[in-house]
């Protein structure tokens, strides 16, 4: 039997790695994947809390997070592809304006 605090500790580690990934990488696709990593860390914490308190609300919330993440990835990748079509290169340092 693994204590739930182990899971939340792992979740904290994964979330921090995701934050560092968002800051140090320049490729928007990798930044996106780091955001997915953070979402997953939060999901893991939610499931661990749900397990700890013996109810299913955490799991229901994780399901909604998954749906929102799916929608977010689809729209985000479409935006990245649209930007790439216009600018022919991908680096978040070039994208300081909300227009092209």
């Amino acid at each position, binding site marked *: 039997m693994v204590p739930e605090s182990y899971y939340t500790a792992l979740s904290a580690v994964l979330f*921090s790695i995701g934050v560092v*990934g968002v800051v140090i990488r320049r490729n928007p696709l990798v930044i996106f994947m780091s955001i997915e990593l953070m979402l997953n860390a939060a999901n893991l914490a939610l499931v661990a809390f749900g397990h700890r308190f013996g*109810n299913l609300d955490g799991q*229901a919330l994780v399901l909604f997070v998954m*749906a929102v993440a799916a929608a977010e990835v689809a729209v985000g990748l479409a935006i990245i592809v649209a930007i790439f079509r216009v600018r022919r290169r991908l680096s978040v340092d070039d994208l300081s304006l909300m227009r092209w």
Partner: protein
Amino acid sequence: MARAAFFVLAALATGSALGLILKKNAIHGALFLVVNLGSIAVLYLMLGAEFLAAAQVIVYAGAIMVLFVFAIMVLIPGKEETGPDPRRAYRLLALPLGAALLLLLGGVVAGRLGAPAAAGAAGDAGALGRLLFTRYLFPFEVTSVLLLAAMVGVLLLARRGA
């Protein structure tokens, strides 16, 4: 036994997460993320969330990662992060800041180590489904609207000459 399995999975998840943010090649990062999502799915199983483990594999490792790999293949990045870094000072700051965040989160987790655990079985996929269609019925329906909006938005963005 469960503890050993947890530590193996935790090492796998942490290592693959580090691989994702440290590998220069985006496609390697995507494959690392698949490993990470898979190990988290096994952790869900260990926490008794069978339905979420299946959904994790199908939705994340299946659908979302296919989308990612497809986008990476279309855009052919990998050359973008080679030149000189225009914001090197900020990026060097990222590691201490990330470590500070980890310390903060770890402090929160450690502060709750001795909290009493509420006993009780969480329930299976059937119970989760009943919960979704009773208490969370409205958010569940809103999710379908959200997915439809995302689909329409993506079609609009992906249109040629949009």
